[in-house]
């Protein structure tokens, strides 16, 4: 708890933190402006008949698409924060001489790593929930639309960022701060590519692409969590509106099923064990 408190204080008192808040504020303002202007341009046709009896609910299509993009932006911002808080925890802080005075205290390396993980997960989790709720309220205020599920997508976004916190902490044991930051961004990019492949696979009905996307998203479960969360916001939407949604970012949205949560917990446990094992063996 002492280490977690130290890490939270560190997060809040670093000069970059106010910058993150200002940038997030700017993103939310731009998002609100963008949603408002886009909604104005589509107000004339809230429902559109694209064929005999084939009706697309433009409100759902438009709102869910924008909110889905906002969820991606939220995940991206959460990832930036997660990397910023954890990329230098072990090797970076050792090279700067920050870690040694703490490690020689009777707290234990496992507790130190656990404290840093808990603090980063808490800060990133609160941040992601705040951005999620803000974009949700903005979307609703402009369009009057609510997602089909409110809590699950938020929880899965938080879970996705926590997975990235775990990956970044593990990387910090073995890689220098800069190398780790780059590596985690590349891993995040790989997850993004997996989502795009899924989207293309869905559009082209390609089994191979879908398999690659599915395997990749489970290997990097922050992507599976994001896809499942994305799927959840239109979980009850059916018919032609659903088909139209699949043409956009929702093409990559996949329901992961009940095994995702235990899988992610197991994945985090493996990451944690690997990080602790590596840290305990590391000469500082």
């Amino acid at each position, binding site marked *: 708890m*002492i280490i977690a408190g*130290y890490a939270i204080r*560190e997060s809040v*008192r*670093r000069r970059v933190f106010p910058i993150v808040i200002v940038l997030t504020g700017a993103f939310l303002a731009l998002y609100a402006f963008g949603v408002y202007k886009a909604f104005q341009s589509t107000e004339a046709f809230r429902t559109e008949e694209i064929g005999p009896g084939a009706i697309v609910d433009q409100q759902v299509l438009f709102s869910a698409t924008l909110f889905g993009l906002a969820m991606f932006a939220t995940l991206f911002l959460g990832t930036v924060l997660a990397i910023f808080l954890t990329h230098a925890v072990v090797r970076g802080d050792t090279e*700067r*001489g*920050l870690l*040694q*005075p*703490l*490690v*020689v*205290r*009777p*707290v*234990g390396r496992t507790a130190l790593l656990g404290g840093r993980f808990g603090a980063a997960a808490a800060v990133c989790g609160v941040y992601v929930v705040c951005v999620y709720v803000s974009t949700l309220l903005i979307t609703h205020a402009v369009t009057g639309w609510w997602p089909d599920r409110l809590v699950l997508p938020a929880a899965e976004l938080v879970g996705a960022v926590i997975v990235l916190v775990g990956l970044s902490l593990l990387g910090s044991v073995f890689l220098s701060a800069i190398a780790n930051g780059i590596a985690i961004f590349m891993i995040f990019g790989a997850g993004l590519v997996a989502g795009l492949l899924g989207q293309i696979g869905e559009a082209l009905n390609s089994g191979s692409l879908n398999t690659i996307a599915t395997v990749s998203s489970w290997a990097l479960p922050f992507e599976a969590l994001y896809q499942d969360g994305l799927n959840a916001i239109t979980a009850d939407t059916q018919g032609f509106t659903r088909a139209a949604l699949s043409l956009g970012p929702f093409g990559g949205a996949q329901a992961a099923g009940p095994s995702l949560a235990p899988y992610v917990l197991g994945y985090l446990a493996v990451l944690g064990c690997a990080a602790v094992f590596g840290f305990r*063996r590391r*000469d*500082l």
Partner: protein
Amino acid sequence: MLRTLGPMATAFSAKGLGKRYGNVTALGGVDVSVEEGELVGLLGPNGAGKSTLVKIGCGLVRPTSGYAEVCGAPAGSLEARSAMGYLAELFRFPGWYSADEVLELHQRLADSSGEEAERTELLGLVGLLDARGRRVEDMSKGMQQRLGIAQALVGTPRMLFLDEPTSALDPAGRRTVRGLLEELRRRGVAVLLNSHLLSEVELVCDRVVILDRGVVVTAGRTDELAKPRGVEIEVDGAVRNYEGAGREDVPRIVRELVAAGESVYGVRVLRSTLEEIYLEAVEGDNG
């Protein structure tokens, strides 16, 4: 808070301590011990293995062979870390912390019950009482080093590892640290002092251990290690050197000079300095 400590086992002991980094041997079977209230100076050229030895004692580095104990507990164990304090050669505290906050954090980590009184005493001991609210990033390097020493003393350690504690200090700061080390000895704290400043080690340490290329090349009390280098006697307008003579020869030499009608104004028994002992040990080992 700093207290006078009761009796304990050997504060630090290393037996056959070895450490390899790949093909490089940093320590090749080192035996060192530091007793309660003893100040031991650890000397040696760059790359001799001094910092590695200190880091093994603190549990930062795992030995390849041999073992080390702090106050009877294996180095690096929770018990060992509870009994020791450490100042790293290269260390940094978060810049946004004040001096008082740094010590408060370490009090909590060390489970010290000293509270504000301990922080006040430690900051006073290192001459930072007026800077207790100053942020670390606004401190000079020397002030940060003094804060590092205060941090190492949090929780009344029985064994103190100091790795180059005075490298960034001005002469006044070094004098403060010397006084502090003498006070620690008086209170029974054992200190392993890794330093390149031979004059300081000579002034405060009870014993020295000289490492070179990972092995102990010389160890002992400085007065035992010092070799006689003759006697220097000041007579009428001249200084005469008696090489090979020792303290026990002085009365005879003075008697002979006086009998010969010379006036003796001063006598100095010459012994090798720590610098000479060090250079002889290191260069002799290399050459």
